[in-house]
C-alpha cells in the first residue's frame, strides 16, 4: 500500500466540504488507503470508477453525521450572534466584490435572469395545467367527475345527459352534492354590435358544490333552475363585470339580451374563479334557462341518446370512489335504459377533479412538461456559463486568496465567502427572473396557449417559491467549483510568483464547462429544428382547403328563435353581400365545412345488373365552393346556376369515392343514388380532390357533393365560406360585417380562418408550441454559449499576451496567431458539438411520437444546426482573435 498515491482532488474536496472538520482527515486517509489498494488490484481506470461510486455512497452517512454533530453541539448566545455577524459581513463583502466588477456582475445576472426566468415561466404553466388546485374551490380533492367507459374501450365518455344527471343528483348515495355543467357559445345582443359570449350552463347545485362565495349578489336558487323552463337569471364573471359594466354596482339587476331572452344579472363571481375548468366563462346560466341555445332543442330534459352534460360531485366522507361510481351507474341505468353508456359492460369511474383537468389538457400538458425539461437545459447552460465566469475571476483572484490564507484565514471560510457571492448573484438573478417569468408567462399564454384561455394570474406564491428555491440551488451549484478551485490556491508559489498577474491558462474545468454549453445548446437547437420541420410538414400537406386564406362564417339563427326555413333567405343575401365586398376572391354557401360537423349517407352506384353500396360523407354546396376552398377539380365541371331544382340531378364525387366505385375508369357521366333508393339517380359531373373532413391527420373518406338548389332540405345548417384576395386579417371584419348586416336583428356572425378553427389549432398546437418554444430556448442557449466562448477565449488571450508576444517576436505572423486562437476555441465547441449530437441522437426516440413525418435523426436538421453552431462559435472567437493579432510585441514582452 503506497502512501504516496493521491486521491483525485475532486473526491477529496467533496468529502472535505461535506464532512465535519474533525472527521475530514481520517476519512480522506482511509479513502486514500483503499483507493491505493484498488489501483494495485484492478488498475487505475477501474479504481477511478470505484472511487466515484464510493464517494457518492459515502456522502449521505457523512452528511448525517455532520448534522448530528451540529445538533448536539450547544451554541451559546454569543456564538449564534457571531455566526449571524459573520454571514452579514460575508454578504457585505460579496456586495463590494460584485460592485467592483460591474461587467461580470451584469453578465452573470443576465444569464441567471434568463435561465431561472425560463424555468419559472415553464413551472408556472406546468403547475397551472397539472398541479395547482382551482381557485376559490373548497376542498377540491373531495370533488370528482363521472367518466363512463368500458373495460375494453377505456374511459373517455365525459359527458352525460339530463335524465342521468337528475337521477344521480336525486337518488345517488355516494355523493353529498351533484352538479352538472355544459359549455356553450351564447349570442349576446343583435345586429352590428352582436357578440358571442363564452357561457356555461350550470345546475343550481354547481356553486354550492364548489363552496364558492359570490363577489357581489348571489348564485342560483334551486327554484330558478327548474325543468323545463328556468328563470332568466345570470351570474357574470369578474372579468366580464369589469369589461361590460366597468365594475359598477349597477351591474346587479341589469338585463342582458342572451339568445332569445332577456336575462337579469343576479350575481358576480369572485376574481380568478374559474370553476372546474382553467378559464372563467363570461356568464353562467341555469341549465333550464339555456333552453333554445342548446343544440337539443325542446327535448333536453327527456332525451337520453345524445350526451352533453358533465357531471361533478362531492364525495360523502368515507365512501370509496368505486362504490360511489357503481351506485351512480345503477341509478343511471334505471333513469336512462336506452342511453348507449348505460348498456351492459359500461361503468362509471369517479375521477378526482385534478387528474381529470390534467388529462383534458392533453398534448398541451405533455408539451409543456417537455418544455419544462428543455428550460432546465437552458438553466444548466446558464449555470455552466456563470461557473466559467466565476472560475476565470477566481483565477485572477488567486493571489488575493493566497495572501488571505497566508494571513491565517481558513480555507473553509474562503469557500463560505465565495459561495456567499454566488448565492447573492443568484438571488439578484432570481429577482430579475421574476420579471422575465411574468412577461414570459404572459407571452406564452397569449401566443401559444390561447385556446386554453388561462385567466388566473401568471405569478403566484408557488411560482415565487419555486424561483427562490431554484435561485438558491443554482447559487450553490455555480459557486461550488470556482470556490473549491480558488480555495486550493498554493500559498507559497502564488505569492512568490510575484507580479500582479498571478495568472494561469484556463483550467480543464473551464474547457469542460465550455464544451458542455456547446453540447447542450446543440441538443436544444436540434429539438427546435425537428419541431420546425414537423410544422413545415404539417403545413405543406395537401388538405384540399387553403387554411391560410379561407374564412368560415357561421351564424346561429336558431339560438335567437328564428326558424330553419328562414336560413336560406338570410344566407343567400349574406352571400351576395360577401361576394360584392372588397378583398374577396370568391365565396359560397355550404351545409357543412372542413373541420365542421359530418353527415353520412348511403351512396348506390349503378352497375350493369346490380347496385353497389358505399357509405359516404356528403355536403350540400353552391357553385364556386371548391374554387373558394382551393380544392382542385380533377375532372369534369363545377356546379353552376343551371343546376336548378327542376334541372337533371347532378353530383360531384371526391377522388376516393371515384376510385373505389369505378377504379381507373372514367367517373364522369355515371349514375349514382344518394340516400333513399326511391330517389332518381344523379349524374356525376365532376371529380374533386379529397378534402379534409375532421382532422388534418385523417385518412381520406368517401365524399359526395350535392348542389344546394337540388338538396335544400337535406341539412339545415348553413355556413358561408369566403376566400380572401388581399390581407386575410383585414378581410375577416369585412366578411363578418357583410354577414351581420344581411338582415336586421341577426345574432353574432362568427368568422374565422380555417387555420383558426378549434380543431386545426388544437391539432397543430404541439408543433407550434414545440417549434416556437424550443426555438426561443435554443436561441437563448446559443446566445449564452456564444457569450461563454467569447468570455473564456478572450480571457485566455489576455492571460497569454506574453506568450503571443514571444511567438510574434520569433516570427509568427498575425494570421498564425489568429488561427491559433480560433483553433483553440473551435476545437472545444466541436468536441461539445459532437457530444451534443450524440445526446440528441440517443434521445431521439423520446421525441419521435411528438414529431410529424420527420425522423429524429433528420440529416438536414443535424447539418443545419451544426453549421449554425459553428458560425456562431466562429463569430464569438473572432473578437479575441483580432485582439491577439494586435498584441504589441514590445509591451507584451516588457510587461513582466
Amino acid at each position, binding site marked *: 500500500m503506497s502512501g504516496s498515491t493521491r486521491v483525485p482532488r475532486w473526491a477529496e474536496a467533496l468529502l472535505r466540504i461535506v464532512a465535519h472538520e474533525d472527521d475530514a482527515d481520517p*476519512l480522506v486517509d482511509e479513502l486514500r488507503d483503499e483507493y491505493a489498494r484498488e489501483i494495485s488490484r484492478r488498475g487505475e481506470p477501474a479504481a477511478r470508477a470505484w472511487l466515484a461510486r464510493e464517494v457518492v455512497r459515502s456522502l449521505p*452517512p457523512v452528511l448525517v453525521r455532520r448534522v448530528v454533530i451540529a445538533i448536539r453541539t450547544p451554541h451559546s448566545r454569543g456564538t449564534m450572534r457571531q455566526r449571524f455577524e459573520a454571514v452579514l459581513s460575508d454578504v457585505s463583502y460579496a456586495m463590494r466584490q460584485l460592485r467592483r466588477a460591474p461587467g461580470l456582475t451584469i453578465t452573470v445576472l443576465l444569464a441567471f435572469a434568463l435561465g431561472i426566468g425560463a424555468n419559472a415561466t415553464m413551472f408556472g404553466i406546468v403547475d397551472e395545467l397539472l398541479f395547482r388546485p382551482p381557485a376559490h374551490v373548497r376542498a377540491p380533492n373531495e370533488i370528482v367527475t363521472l367518466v363512463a367507459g368500458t373495460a375494453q374501450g377505456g374511459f373517455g365518455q365525459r359527458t352525460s345527459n339530463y335524465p342521468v344527471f337528475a337521477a344521480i343528483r336525486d337518488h345517488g348515495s355516494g355523493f353529498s352534492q351533484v352538479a352538472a355543467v355544459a359549455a356553450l357559445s351564447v349570442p349576446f345582443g343583435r345586429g352590428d354590435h352582436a357578440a358571442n359570449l363564452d357561457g356555461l350552463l350550470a345546475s343550481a347545485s354547481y356553486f354550492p358544490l364548489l363552496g364558492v362565495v359570490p363577489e357581489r349578489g348571489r348564485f342560483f336558487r334551486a327554484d330558478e333552475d327548474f325543468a323545463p323552463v328556468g328563470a332568466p337569471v345570470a351570474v357574470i364573471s369578474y372579468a366580464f363585470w369589469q369589461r361590460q359594466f366597468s365594475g359598477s354596482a349597477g351591474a346587479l339587476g341589469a338585463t342582458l339580451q342572451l339568445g332569445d331572452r332577456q336575462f337579469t344579472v343576479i350575481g358576480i363571481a369572485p376574481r380568478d374563479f374559474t370553476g372546474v375548468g382553467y378559464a372563467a366563462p363570461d356568464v353562467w346560466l341555469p341549465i333550464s334557462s339555456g333552453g333554445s341555445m342548446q343544440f337539443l332543442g325542446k327535448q333536453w330534459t327527456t332525451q337520453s341518446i345524445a350526451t352533453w352534460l358533465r357531471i361533478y360531485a362531492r364525495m360523502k366522507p368515507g365512501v370509496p370512489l368505486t362504490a360511489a361510481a357503481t351506485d351512480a351507474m345503477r341509478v343511471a341505468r334505471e333513469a336512462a335504459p336506452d342511453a348507449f353508456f348505460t348498456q351492459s359492460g359500461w361503468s362509471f369511474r369517479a375521477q378526482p377533479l385534478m387528474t381529470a383537468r390534467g388529462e383534458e389538457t392533453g398534448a398541451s400538458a405533455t408539451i409543456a412538461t417537455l418544455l419544462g425539461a428543455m428550460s432546465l437545459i437552458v438553466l444548466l447552460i446558464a449555470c455552466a456559463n456563470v461557473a466559467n465566469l466565476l472560475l476565470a475571476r477566481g483565477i485572477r483572484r488567486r493571489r488575493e486568496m493566497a495572501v488571505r490564507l497566508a494571513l491565517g484565514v481558513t480555507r473553509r471560510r474562503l469557500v463560505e465567502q465565495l459561495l456567499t457571492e454566488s448565492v447573492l448573484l443568484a438571488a439578484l438573478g432570481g429577482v430579475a427572473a421574476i420579471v422575465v417569468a411574468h412577461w414570459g408567462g404572459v407571452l406564452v399564454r397569449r401566443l401559444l396557449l390561447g385556446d386554453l384561455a388561462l385567466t388566473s394570474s401568471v405569478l403566484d406564491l408557488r411560482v415565487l417559491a419555486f424561483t427562490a428555491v431554484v435561485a438558491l440551488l443554482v447559487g450553490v451549484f455555480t459557486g461550488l467549483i470556482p470556490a473549491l478551485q480558488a480555495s486550493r490556491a498554493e500559498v507559497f508559489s502564488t505569492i512568490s510568483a510575484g507580479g500582479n498577474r498571478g495568472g494561469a491558462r484556463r483550467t480543464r474545468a473551464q474547457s469542460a464547462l465550455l464544451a458542455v454549453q456547446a453540447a447542450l445548446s446543440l441538443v436544444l437547437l436540434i429539438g427546435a429544428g425537428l419541431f420546425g420541420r414537423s410544422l413545415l410538414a404539417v403545413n405543406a400537406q395537401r388538405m384540399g382547403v387553403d387554411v391560410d386564406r379561407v374564412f368560415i362564417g357561421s351564424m346561429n339563427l336558431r339560438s335567437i328563435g328564428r326558424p330553419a326555413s328562414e336560413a336560406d333567405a338570410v344566407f343567400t343575401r349574406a352571400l351576395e353581400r360577401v361576394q360584392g365586398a372588397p378583398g374577396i376572391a370568391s365565396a359560397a354557401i355550404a351545409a357543412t365545412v372542413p373541420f365542421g360537423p359530418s353527415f353520412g349517407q348511403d351512396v348506390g352506384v349503378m352497375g350493369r345488373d346490380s347496385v353497389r353500396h358505399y357509405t359516404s360523407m356528403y355536403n350540400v354546396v353552391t357553385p364556386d365552393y371548391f374554387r373558394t376552398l382551393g380544392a382542385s377539380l380533377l375532372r369534369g365541371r363545377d356546379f353552376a346556376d343551371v343546376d336548378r331544382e327542376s334541372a337533371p340531378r347532378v353530383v360531384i364525387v371526391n377522388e376516393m369515392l371515384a376510385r373505389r366505385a369505378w377504379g381507373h375508369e372514367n367517373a364522369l357521366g355515371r349514375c349514382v343514388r344518394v340516400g333513399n333508393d326511391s330517389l332518381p339517380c344523379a349524374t356525376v359531373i365532376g371529380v374533386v380532390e379529397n378534402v379534409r373532413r375532421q382532422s388534418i391527420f385523417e385518412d381520406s373518406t368517401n365524399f359526395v357533393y350535392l348542389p344546394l338548389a337540388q338538396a335544400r332540405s337535406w341539412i339545415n345548417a348553413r355556413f358561408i365560406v369566403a376566400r380572401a384576395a388581399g390581407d386575410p386579417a383585414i378581410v375577416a371584419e369585412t366578411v363578418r360585417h357583410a354577414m351581420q348586416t344581411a338582415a336586421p336583428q341577426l345574432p353574432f356572425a362568427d368568422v374565422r380562418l380555417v387555420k383558426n378553427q378549434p380543431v386545426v389549432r388544437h391539432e397543430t398546437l404541439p408543433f407550434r408550441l414545440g417549434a416556437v418554444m424550443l426555438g426561443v430556448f435554443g436561441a437563448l442557449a446559443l446566445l449564452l454559449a456564444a457569450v461563454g466562448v467569447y468570455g473564456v477565449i478572450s480571457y485566455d488571450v489576455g492571460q497569454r499576451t506574453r506568450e503571443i508576444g514571444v511567438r510574434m517576436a520569433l516570427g509568427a505572423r498575425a494570421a498564425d496567431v489568429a488561427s491559433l486562437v480560433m483553433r483553440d476555441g473551435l476545437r472545444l465547441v466541436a468536441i461539445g458539438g459532437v457530444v451534443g449530437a450524440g445526446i440528441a441522437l440517443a434521445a431521439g426516440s423520446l421525441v419521435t411520437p411528438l414529431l410529424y413525418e420527420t425522423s429524429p435523426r433528420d440529416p438536414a436538421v443535424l447539418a443545419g444546426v451544426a453549421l449554425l453552431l459553428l458560425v456562431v462559435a466562429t463569430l464569438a472567437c473572432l473578437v479575441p482573435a483580432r485582439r491577439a493579432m494586435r498584441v504589441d510585441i514590445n509591451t507584451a514582452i516588457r510587461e513582466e
Partner: protein
Amino acid sequence: MIRPDLGELELFSLLAIQHLGGEALGLAIRDEIEGRTGRRVSVGSGYATLARLADKGLIRFTVMPPEPRQGGRSRRCAELTPAGARAVRESVSSLRKMLGNLAVESGP
C-alpha cells in the same frame, strides 16, 4: 437481548474489532465485515458507524505512530472499551438464548 441502542452495523463493527484482536483500522474492519457477511460497507458509512460507537463510549480511538517513511501519516485505530466488550457479550448471549434449540436454516 441485543441492546436496543445498538444497530446491526454497529454490532458487526464491534464483532469485527474483536475478530481483529481488539483494535483495528477502519479499512480492516470493513474488510472483516465483507469477508464474513459479503456486505461491502462504504468508507463513509463505516466511518460514521465507528464515530457513533465512540460517541456511545463502546470504542475509543488511539493514534498509532506514523509509518516510518517519507510522507507516512499517523493512523487512528479503533479499540473496544470495557463497555463495548460488555455490549458484545450481552448482545451475543441474548441472541443465543433466543435461538435456543431452534433450527434456523442458514443460507448458503
